[in-house]
C-alpha cells in the first residue's frame, strides 16, 4: 500500500504537500463514485428517487387532503429507509478503501516535518526492563533535554529537535520523520508489526527488540486555504466530495 501511494504521489514530490493531498483527494473522490456505481443497484436507486420525487409532489398537490398527505408522507419515510438500504452495501464496500486512504494521508500530510527548530517529544515504552547505558548522541537531530526515566511504567521520554525532516537515535532503535520529499510517510512512532499496523497506522515503523512502542508528539499541520486553516482531513473530505460530485455528473451515477 505504501509503495502504491508512493507511486501515485511521485509527480508531486517536489511540490507543496497540498498539491499531493488534493490530487489523492480528487482521485479518491472519482474512484469512490465509480465503486459506488459498480456496487449499487443503479436502476433501483433511479426508480426509487423518481418515486420519492412523485410522492413529494403529490404532498404539495393534495395539501387540502390531510389523509392523502399523511399517507404520502408515510410512504416517503418508507422509501427513505429503502434508499438507505440500497446505499448500505456500496457504503460498506467504500469504507474499507476510505480508511486505508485516510491512514495513508494521515501518515503523509498530518504532521509538521522534523526540521531544525521544531521541538518534539518522544516516549519509548520498554517491554520488560529499561536497558542501562542507553545514552549517547542521536545520529540525526539534537537532544533538547535529558532523558526522563519513569521506572514504574518502563517509560523513557525526551525532547528533541529534528534535522532535515529526521530524527534518529539508533541505540533506542528510533527513527522518526521523513527525509523524503513532499508526500512521503512521516514516521512518528513504532509498534510491534502486524497487518493492522501496516494498513491502518502506516506512520509507525516496526518496534524491534525490547522496545514495545514509541510515541512522539509532533505538531499537526494546518493548510491555509482561502484564508482559513484546514486540517488534512477537512481538505480530503471537501476535495474528494467535490470530485465525487464531478464524477457522478460525468459518469451518470445515481446517488
Amino acid at each position, binding site marked *: 500500500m505504501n509503495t502504491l501511494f508512493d507511486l501515485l504521489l511521485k509527480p508531486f514530490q517536489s511540490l507543496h504537500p497540498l498539491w499531493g493531498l*488534493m490530487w489523492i483527494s*480528487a482521485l479518491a473522490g472519482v474512484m469512490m463514485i465509480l465503486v459506488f456505481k459498480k456496487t449499487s443497484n443503479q436502476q433501483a436507486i433511479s426508480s426509487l428517487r423518481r418515486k420519492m420525487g412523485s410522492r413529494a409532489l403529490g404532498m404539495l398537490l393534495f395539501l387540502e387532503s390531510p389523509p392523502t398527505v399523511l399517507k404520502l408522507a408515510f410512504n416517503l419515510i418508507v422509501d427513505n429507509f429503502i434508499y438507505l438500504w440500497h446505499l448500505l452495501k456500496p457504503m460498506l464496500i467504500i469504507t474499507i478503501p476510505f480508511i486505508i486512504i485516510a491512514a495513508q494521508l494521515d501518515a503523509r500530510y498530518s504532521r509538521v516535518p522534523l526540521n531544525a527548530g521544531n*521541538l518534539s517529544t518522544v516516549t519509548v515504552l520498554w517491554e520488560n526492563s529499561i536497558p542501562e547505558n542507553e545514552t549517547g548522541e542521536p545520529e540525526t537531530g539534537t537532544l533538547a533535554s535529558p*532523558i*526522563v*526515566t519513569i521506572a*514504574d511504567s518502563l517509560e523513557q521520554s525526551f525532547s528533541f529537535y529534528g534535522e532535515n525532516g529526521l530524527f534518529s537515535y539508533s541505540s533506542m532503535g528510533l527513527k522518526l520523520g521523513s527525509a523524503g520529499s513532499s508526500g512521503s510517510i512521516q514516521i512518528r512512532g513504532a509498534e510491534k508489526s502486524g497487518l493492522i499496523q501496516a494498513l491502518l497506522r502506516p506512520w509507525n515503523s516496526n518496534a524491534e527488540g525490547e522496545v514495545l512502542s514509541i510515541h512522539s508528539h509532533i505538531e499537526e499541520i494546518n493548510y491555509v486555504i482561502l484564508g482559513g486553516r484546514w486540517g488534512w482531513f477537512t481538505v480530503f473530505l471537501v476535495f474528494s466530495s467535490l470530485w465525487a460530485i*464531478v464524477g457522478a455528473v460525468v459518469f451518470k451515477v445515481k446517488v
Partner: protein
Amino acid sequence: MKRREFLKKAALTPAALAALSAGCGKTTGQSGKRMIVLAVDGMDPNLLASFMERGLMPNTSRLKEMGSFNKLGTSNPPQSPVAWSNFITGAPPPVHGIFDFIHRDPATMRPFLSISEVSPPDSTLNLGKLRLPLSGGGVNLLRRGTPFWNALLEKGIPVTMVKLPVDFPPPPSDSNGLFLSGLGTPDVRGSQGSFTFFTDDPRSISDNTGGGVVIPVRDYGDGCYTCRVDGPENSLIEGNPTMSVEVKAWVDRESKAVRIDMGDASVVIGEKQWTPWMHFSFPALGPLSTVHAIGRFYLKEITPKLKLYLTPLNIDPENPALPISSPDWYSRDLAEDAGPFYTQGFPEDTKALSRGIFDDDDYLSQADLVLEERMSLFHSVLSKYREGLMFFYFTSLDLNVHMFYRSMDPASPLYGTTDPKFAGVIADLYSRIDIAVGEAMELLDDRTEIILLSDHGFAPFRRSFNLNTFLAAEGFADISSPYERNNDMYACLDWSKTGAYGLGLNGLYINQAGREKNGVVTLADKRNLMENLKSSLEGAVDPLTGEKPIKNLFILEDTYPGYAMPPWAPDMLVGYAHGYRASWETTLGAFPEDVISDNMDPWSGTHCISPDVCPGSLVTSLKNIPVNPTLTEMGSLINAVLLEEDV
C-alpha cells in the same frame, strides 16, 4: 454551461485554491509616504547617547546622522499608560482620562485599573446552575479621545499598530487597520500577569506572594507530581467557580529532568530549561464553550525539591478568549507566522523576581525569551509592511531597566549584592534594539521615514517615599488604628480627620466632601489645603541624604488649566526627585513606619517621578521636527508626513 466547460473549471479549482492559499500580500499600489514607528518603552536619552558614543548602537547613530536626535517631552505623570495615551490622542490626561495605572472610584473608594474594565452581562438566562448571558457585558477600553490614526484611515492609508499600549480591547477595524493590543492586555485570569509556582519546598510557600500563587505539590513515591493549574473564573456557572486543568509532572532526579503531561501534549525539560508554549483548554460549558490559553513551564530546580514555574496563562493569540486584535483574525495570522507569543501587556515577570521566585539568571532567561519572541513578531510584521503607518512596540527595555538599574548604579542599596556579571545587561538590551532599528532602516527610501521614540526615560529608584506616612506625620491624615497601618486601602485611617491621601504611583487626592465616600474637605478649603500640601511636600528633606525627595508637586487644575477633570482624576501629582519614588506600600494605601526607606526591591529603576527628570528619546530620519518636541505632538507629526502636509 456545457459539460466540457464545467469539467475544465472544476479541474482548475484545486489550482485556484492552491494559488489563493499561497496568500497574496496586501499591495495597495499606493505610492505615498510610508512611516515606521519603533516605540521603545523607557529608552532613556542619556543612556542612548552614551551607548551611541560607545559604538554600541551603530544603526541608531546612523539614523541620528540622517535626521536628528532629541529629548522627547513626556507626560505628567510620566507613566506608560498616561504617556502612550497622550501619544495616541495627542491630548493630555484630562482628555483621555488616564492619570495613573490605578484610579479609584470616589464613591466607594475602591481602586481599579485605569486602562480597561470588564463589565458583567446586563441580563442572564438562568437554567439551574447555568448562567447564560443574554445582553451586555464585555471588556471596555477606558481610554477616551480620538486616536490620531483615524485621520489616516479616513484617507484610506493603511495603519498597522502592533503591541499598541493602552488599546485593550482594540477598536473594530477593517483590514486597512490592523491592531494588536499591548500594554494593558490582561492574562486569561484577568490580572496583569499572575504566575503559578509548584513546589514541595515549604520554605517557598508563603501567603504573601503578590504577582502569582505558590501551590504546594507532593510526590507520593512514584515520581509524579499532580499540578492543578487554575484558569479563569467560569461566569457561565452560578458562583463563578474557577476552571482548572490537571498537569502531571514526572520527575527524574538522576537526570535532573521532568516530563510534563497535559492531555495529549507531553514535553521534557531539564533544569533551567523552558518548555515551548503549551496550549491549555478550560471547558466552560462542556465542548460548547472552551477558554483557550497558553503558558510555558520553567524547571527552576529539581533537587532536592521541585520548583516548577508556570508563566501567567496568556490569552492564546490563535484562539483568543478576549479581543486582543482587530480584525480578530490578525492575532491568529501573526501567531501562524511568528509562532505563539506573550499577549499579556507586561510579559517580563518582574513580580517573580521581586518575590524571590526567580533569581537574576532565571529572570534574564525569561526576559530573553520575551525579547526573542518580540523580534520574531517584528520580523513578521516588517516583512509584510507595504504602505502607510507601521507602529511596533518593544517593552523589554523598560521592564529590564526597571529590574537591573541597580547593576549600573553604584549608589543603589542593592549595587553591592548584584553580581557584577549583570553590569552589561542594559547595554546589551540597547544594542539588541539597535538591531531592530537596523532592520527597519533597510526599508528606508525617498518615501519612507523612521521614528524611534520612547515614552519616558529612566532614573534610579534608591529611596522609597511613603507618601501616606508623610501625610499622617504632617497631620494631613489621621491614623486611628496603628496596628493596621501596614494593611492596604487605608485600613488604619480615620477618614473624618483626613484631608488628603495618596493612591497610585503619583496621585495625591483631597478627601473632598460630596465627592469622596467619607469626604470632609469643603471646596472652599480645598485650594488652601493643596497649597499647604505643596509647600510641605516640596520642603520635605531626606534625613539620610539631605536631599529633597520631591522636586515638584503639581496641582492638576494649574497644570492643565481649562480642562474639566473627571471624578477619578487625582487633585495633585507628586513629581519625585532623581533617586526617589513612591513606595510600593503607599501606592495602595498602606502606612509603613518610616517616611523614607531604602528600596531593597530589585525594581531599582523608575520613571514615575517629575517629568522633567526623565524625558523620552526621539531619533528620526525626519529633518524637520518641532522645537522641544513632545510625545503628545508625535501623532500630528506622523499624520502630517503621511498625509503630506506641512510639518
